[in-house]
């Protein structure tokens, strides 16, 4: 599942007016009460239909998500190499993982990539949203231009940028033919710079969506507060900085969560753009996991790395989901 779309997900989670029915306020505690099935006279089937309908999905989730997580955790404590072997190995695979230089490269790259990708996407998203919020003529035509990259696959994005940044035939050649003959752009094959090409392509793909989130946030701000600030004589810049942006905090949080978990899950883009190279210059935990598990016959190490990824994401997502589901108690 391409992680860009996964990104929209927590956005949805934010939106949930968790559990509050929309019916106009009624007295009493009726809002707490489910319309619930009256038991009598309708039979067991009707009364339990709801649970019955939900149960396959629940079962599938328990097995395919939680069961498999446990399975992978078990593998990470086993001696598995080429194939799964269920022989206890204690923390050996974790020790091996943390003794692998490549793993450090992957983590360092994730730090660079994640940090820049999140920061630039947030900044660019907010900036374009603010620009678009200035009663722009043709906004309806511009918005889809910023948003369309999220409709396409990371593999396509990677393929396109790989060509666009092609040393020799790509940007280089364009600049040369425009007369800037000393221009070189070799980041794709430069081990020190390759990771930044991933950042560029990643930002290109996602920032439009972040822009859309911010734009919706801006549109949701109470107009009267802004009018009041204008009457108070605040210049536009000040109004944004002091009044509007602080009110966008929930959007920032949602966007941050989305970007963070997308960064950690990034896999397709690297594969298509650099294949993890040159050398291991753009290795990420996700590519590390894949290659150690499936091609380097180190399934235990791969499982251990997957567990590390899961724990990192869980550390962010679990508190977030908990607060989202908890906040608006039904």
């Amino acid at each position: 599942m391409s992680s860009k779309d996964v990104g929209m997900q927590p956005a949805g989670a934010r939106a949930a007016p968790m559990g509050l029915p929309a019916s106009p306020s009624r007295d009493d505690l009726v809002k707490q009460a489910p319309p619930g099935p009256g038991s009598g006279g309708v039979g067991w089937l009707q009364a339990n239909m709801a649970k019955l309908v939900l149960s396959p999905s629940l079962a599938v989730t328990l097995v395919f998500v939680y069961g498999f997580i446990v399975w992978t955790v078990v593998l990470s404590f086993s001696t598995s190499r080429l194939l799964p072997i269920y022989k206890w190995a204690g923390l050996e695979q974790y020790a091996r993982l943390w003794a692998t230089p490549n793993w450090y490269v992957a983590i360092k790259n994730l730090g660079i990539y994640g940090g820049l990708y999140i920061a630039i996407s947030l900044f660019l998203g907010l900036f374009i949203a603010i620009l678009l919020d200035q009663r722009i003529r043709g906004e309806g035509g511009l918005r889809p231009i910023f948003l369309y990259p999220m409709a396409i696959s990371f593999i396509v994005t990677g393929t396109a940028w790989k060509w666009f940044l092609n040393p020799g035939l790509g940007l280089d050649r364009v600049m040369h033919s425009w007369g800037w003959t000393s221009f070189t752009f070799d980041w794709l094959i430069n081990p020190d710079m390759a990771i930044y090409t991933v950042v560029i392509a990643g930002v290109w793909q996602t920032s439009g969506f972040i822009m859309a989130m911010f734009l919706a946030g801006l549109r949701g701000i109470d107009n009267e507060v802004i009018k009041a600030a204008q009457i108070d004589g605040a210049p536009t810049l000040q109004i944004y900085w002091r009044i509007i942006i602080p009110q966008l905090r929930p959007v920032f949080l949602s966007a941050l969560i989305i970007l963070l978990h997308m960064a950690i899950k990034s896999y397709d883009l690297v594969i298509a753009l650099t294949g993890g190279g040159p050398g291991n210059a753009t290795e990420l935990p996700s590519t590390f996991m894949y290659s150690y598990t499936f091609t380097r016959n180190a399934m235990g190490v791969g499982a251990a790395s997957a567990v590390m990824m899961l724990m990192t994401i869980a550390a962010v997502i679990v508190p977030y989901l908990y607060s989202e589901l908890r906040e608006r108690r039904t």
Partner: protein
Amino acid sequence: MAFLEIDRLHKRYGATEILKGIDLDLDQGGFLVLVGPSGCGKSTLLNTIAGLEQITGGEIRLEGRKINDLHPSRRDIAMVFQSYALYPTMSIKDNIGFGLEMRKVPKAEREAAIARVAKTLQIEHLLQRRPSQLSGGQRQRVAMGRALVRNPRLFLFDEPLSNLDAKLRVDMRTEIKRLHQQTGTTIVYVTHDQIEAMTLATKIAVLKDGKLQQVGTPAEIYNRPDNLFVADFMGSPSMNLMAGTVRASGNGAMIQLAQREGSIALQIPPSVTARDLPPEKKVIFGIRPEAITDIDGADRHASQLQTIEGRVDVIEPAGSDTYVVTQLGGKEVIARMRAEASLKVGDLVPFAFNLDKALLFDPETGYRL
């Protein structure tokens, strides 16, 4: 045996008890209004009658048959919801006919029933439209039509007029009353608007905190409220309630009320026998605004009228009458004077108390003496 009987009804959500033992009954053709402030349990009570919420204890009987374990659809009850709950994707005709369709009533019969109800409610021209194309009043009619068409044993109304604007509300109120008179249906109606309760009901039940405060005809509830809560809740503006003390005096007891300067003494209202009032007993003296008037506006048939001087603090002309605020017993007191009475703020004017309409309450228990 009454038509609808509610017996020691309890409803609990976890640790919170919403209904604390409700006993109520209603005869066939009656119009019972459940009234009370927000959170009193009146809507929950209605929902338990509908079967939309399970009860924790007690019994609900319809025509002598226990219905509390029946599914809502098997109780032969129809309900009009606060938001009208019209199915947004169905035409008005389908909305009205849905219940019949679910009950597998043949199409021809269904059509006839819809046409009949539409005629009664004068919504024939709306049948092909969608709910979203209707005004609030029209939606209200459709919601009633949906209930009527099934010809159920009992109608439930859950604050049906609260989403309408003031004028429409009055019109629809009349409409509902007329409908009830014409069809003779049995209705249970929830509202927080005590005027609605007074105008519609043949029987009012006042609820507070999940307990019945008083059950009676509108006149009983209005004129002889059982306790301070009912006295205060019913009527607008609400009843004047003043703290006072019983004093022995020459020709029997009097009630002394503190005024801004000094105090005044009022005779014991005829509603109470003086025997019940030992000297120095603290009481709450209750009298409705319309029983305090200017002298010319006083009820000539009143058996006991007493005039007291008071200073005019605020004047609120309401067109037909003028409300005058003064101070008595340490509280603001509202009097209803004729619109023609000439008054100025700060004047010292006579207030005529019609003591026939006055009541006394025990400040400790809150009950009427």
